[in-house]
């Protein structure tokens, strides 16, 4: 038994996919390098329970199967939050359900070598095989910075590879270095000598003492822990965490030890800190100065400025792009151009998708006889999923522009420009990118809040991000504006009222978000103003690979969402509108209509009349079936609630049905107005039906105040299950999604109520 188990284990180890982790500061071209190594074979996700993005690429290096792990860019390995601790545990192999990392590749920006070696000095202390990738070496060369990689390798005791990920040079060398590091894993290899420790020896002495003390303490108190295999001694942090515990006051390493070993360890820690302070001064100051000194010492004779530094293009561009006047003008011009491009470039592919959806619906109609299956496919699935897929071009374009802005270095300038404004609302400049992304879709917008280090700022941004008018609200606006807002020209014919109303709807979300963010920062997320320290990287030509992979990921995620969530929601709503009525007569009429339509013979008046009466009957049947369906009953149940908003039960049902995903309103309204599922915002049939819709006493249901009240409701309401789930995932709590849902729904109702009540005074 034991023998076979050992065999299996050895087979498993020899077949195990090896792990290579990429670590580095932000703006080192790490993602470009990752893409160059892994290609398009990338999966993204989260580490369980935390918001660290898990990005893994598969590649082959030599004979090895490699899982390439891309950790988020960081300036330091000092864990200040549970998330950062996970990043360290991934590297040390302590993370639950995560295999060991075999080789760490530390990516540094060759133009900022000394600053970047700070992180490297922390990485080598993890004691893992490490390779230093001198990325952006072409940029360094262009600036006349010459780096002696052999000397650097000798000084640091690790392999050093000069790369330029954007020019795809040095990639083969890096792979070779990874391979030989993997070949020699286990044995000491070429770089056997112990690495020089960056901090003074006294520090390590105090660390050892503390560790010994903690182990002793664990042994004496460990008797009552019944499980001998899981002794308390295992709970004593390893060398690296002991070091971090001493260095980071109130850091995550300290918090974890207290959690595991009890508050009794705190006196031991502070005693060790005092001892250290007596010998060497304060630990934080000590660490940074020691590491920078270490970096400077190891760069001795490595870096030389071969010729005078040419005037940097970045400084020249910054003089314009962050200028008091020109900078703001450029900022607004860039935003305007992006939104304009999204609208004009997306219309053609959107028409194509629309056409394709229609063709598929026609195909299904011609092959499937009228009945439940056809109704499910056409009214439910195709109308629902097709109606959502139509926004793919806009999403792809928005992500394309965002990826370009981010990769070229402008995004941090935008944060720099707008920070002062955002501070007034209780947010920070770093909230700008997530909020901007939320105009496409709140889901990626909320994920983008990970760049905000401060928890309170991050949560406030997450809470207001869903208020930004996402692309799913657009069809609702377009439909209602086309149907009920007269296309009157204002301001001497330059502008029509319709785009003005559309723009106003986009402003509603922003205008409401300001007091909400401010209120949150005054109440639930109260605290000091968070620090704002942001690196403004060199401008560069965006990497095609990085932009393309970002767009591809976003597009894929959107399609998957349409295929899963919207798909299920569509079926549910279809079922609620279908059940429990008896549809046999309705299908019969449908069959008769189709028999007449396909029948040969001249178009006689008799035939037309027969067809019209049948269609009329079909409409009446569908309408009464819907009224008595589960959906209709819910609708009539909520009618008293929605009446103050000026809505009838049909609008109410549409709004309720759209809670899983607001795009569903179009399909629902289409179904409700007895037109079958295939309806989109351009469909005159739906517009005509809505215009003709009346209350029982003959008044038209839709007036301008009603249309406006619906739009305001959709602008403010949290009608998106995916957003709520992402909020849950990113905040790791149900409180925030529940709060988000409640406050947005309450606001939407109040807003729609006010719009209707005020609107009826004017129109």
């Amino acid at each position, binding site marked *: 038994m034991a023998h076979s188990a050992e065999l299996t284990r050895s087979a498993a180890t020899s077949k195990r996919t090896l792990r290579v982790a990429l670590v580095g500061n932000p703006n080192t071209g790490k993602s470009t390098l990752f893409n160059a190594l892994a290609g398009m074979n990338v999966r993204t996700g989260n580490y369980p329970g935390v918001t660290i993005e898990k990005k893994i690429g598969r590649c082959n290096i030599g004979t090895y199967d490699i899982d390439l792990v891309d950790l988020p860019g960081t300036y330091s390995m000092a864990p200040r939050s549970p998330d950062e601790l996970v990043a360290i545990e991934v590297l040390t192999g302590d993370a639950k359900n995560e295999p060991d990392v075999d080789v760490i590749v530390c990516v540094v920006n060759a133009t900022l070598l000394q600053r970047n070696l700070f992180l490297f000095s922390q990485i080598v202390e993890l004691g893992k095989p490490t390779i230093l990738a001198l990325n952006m070496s072409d940029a360094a060369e262009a600036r006349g910075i010459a780096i002696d990689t052999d000397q650097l390798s000798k000084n640091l005791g690790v392999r050093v590879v000069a790369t330029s990920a954007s020019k795809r040079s040095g990639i083969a060398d890096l792979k070779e270095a990874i391979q030989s590091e993997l070949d020699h894993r286990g044995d000491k290899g070429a770089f056997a000598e112990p690495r020089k420790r960056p901090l003074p020896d006294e520090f390590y002495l105090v660390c050892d003492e503390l560790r010994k003390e903690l182990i002793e303490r664990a042994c004496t108190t460990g008797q009552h822990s019944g499980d001998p295999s899981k002794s308390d001694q295992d709970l004593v942090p390893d060398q690296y965490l002991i070091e971090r515990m001493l260095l980071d006051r109130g850091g995550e390493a300290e918090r974890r030890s207290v959690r595991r070993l009890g508050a009794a360890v705190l006196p031991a820690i502070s005693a060790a800190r005092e001892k250290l302070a007596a010998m060497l001064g304060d630990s934080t100051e000590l660490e940074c100065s020691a590491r920078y000194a270490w970096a400077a010492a190891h760069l001795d004779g490595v870096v030389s400025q071969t010729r005078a530094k040419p005037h940097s293009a970045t400084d020249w561009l910054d003089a314009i792009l962050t200028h008091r006047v020109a900078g703001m003008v450029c900022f607004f011009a860039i935003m305007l151009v992006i939104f304009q491009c999204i609208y004009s470039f997306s219309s053609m592919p959107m028409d194509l998708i629309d056409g394709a959806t229609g063709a598929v619906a026609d195909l299904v109609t011609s092959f499937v006889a009228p009945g439940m299956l056809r109704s499910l496919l056409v009214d439910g699935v195709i109308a629902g999923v097709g109606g959502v897929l139509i926004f793919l071009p806009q999403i792809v374009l928005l992500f394309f522009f965002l990826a370009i802005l981010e990769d070229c270095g402008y995004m941090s300038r935008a944060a720099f420009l707008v920070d002062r404004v955002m*501070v007034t609302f209780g947010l920070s400049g770093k909230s700008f990118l997530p909020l901007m992304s939320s105009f496409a879709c709140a889901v990626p917008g909320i994920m983008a809040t990970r760049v905000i280090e401060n928890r309170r700022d991050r949560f406030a941004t997450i809470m207001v991000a869903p208020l930004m008018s996402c692309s799913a609200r657009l069809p609702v606006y377009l439909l209602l504006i086309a149907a009920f807002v007269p296309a009157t020209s204002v301001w001497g014919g330059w502008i029509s009222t319709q785009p003005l109303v559309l723009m106003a709807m986009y402003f509603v979300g922003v205008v409401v978000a300001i007091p909400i963010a401010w209120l949150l920062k005054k109440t639930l997320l109260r605290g000091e103003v968070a620090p704002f320290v942001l690196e403004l990287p060199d401008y560069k030509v965006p990497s095609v690979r990085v932009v393309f992979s970002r767009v591809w990921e976003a597009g894929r995620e959107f399609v998957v969402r349409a295929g899963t969530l919207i798909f299920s929601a569509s079926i549910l709503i279809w079922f609620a509108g279908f059940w429990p009525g008896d549809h046999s007569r309705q299908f019969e009429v449908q069959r008769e209509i189709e028999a007449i339509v396909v029948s040969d013979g001249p178009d006689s008046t008799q035939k037309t009349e027969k067809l019209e009466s049948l269609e009329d009957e079909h409409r009446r049947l569908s309408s009464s079936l819907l009224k008595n369906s589960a959906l209709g009953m819910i609708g009539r149940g909520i009618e008293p609630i929605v009446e103050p908003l000026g809505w009838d039960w049909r609008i109410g049902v549409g709004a309720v049905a759209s809670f899983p995903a607001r795009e569903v309103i179009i399909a629902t309204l289409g179904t409700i107005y007895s037109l079958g599922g295939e309806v989109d915002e351009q469909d005159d049939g739906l517009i005509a039906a809505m215009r003709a819709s009346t209350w029982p006493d003959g008044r038209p249901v839709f007036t301008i105040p009603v249309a406006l009240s619906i739009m305001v409701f959709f602008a403010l309401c949290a009608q998106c299950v995916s957003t709520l789930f992402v909020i849950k995932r990113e905040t790791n709590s149900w409180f925030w999604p529940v709060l988000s849902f409640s406050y947005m729904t309450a606001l939407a109702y109040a807003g729609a109520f006010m719009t209707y009540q005020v609107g009826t005074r004017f129109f």
Partner: protein
Amino acid sequence: MLLLRLILNNGDSVVTTLDQLLPGQFGQIVRIDGFDSIASRLREMGFIPGQSVQFVRTAPLGDPMKCSVQGSRIAVRSGEARRVYIEPILKPSVEPRS
């Protein structure tokens, strides 16, 4: 470092904070106030005693401010800049770029 000390303002320099500089002026970092996460973030990003720092410009609305330290450009709010104690110096003859 020695070179930097030699070109200090006529020997008896005044210690002030980074936000007190005028756009374009340089300073040599004396110390960073505090030991919290903001102070460590500043240190990690290169604000280390002995390094020279330039206040490049402010954002259009007056805050944050763009600085240059160790060859990288870093935006900080004036609140953070107030914690960076410096001695004003003339333009360092050696670029602080590593």
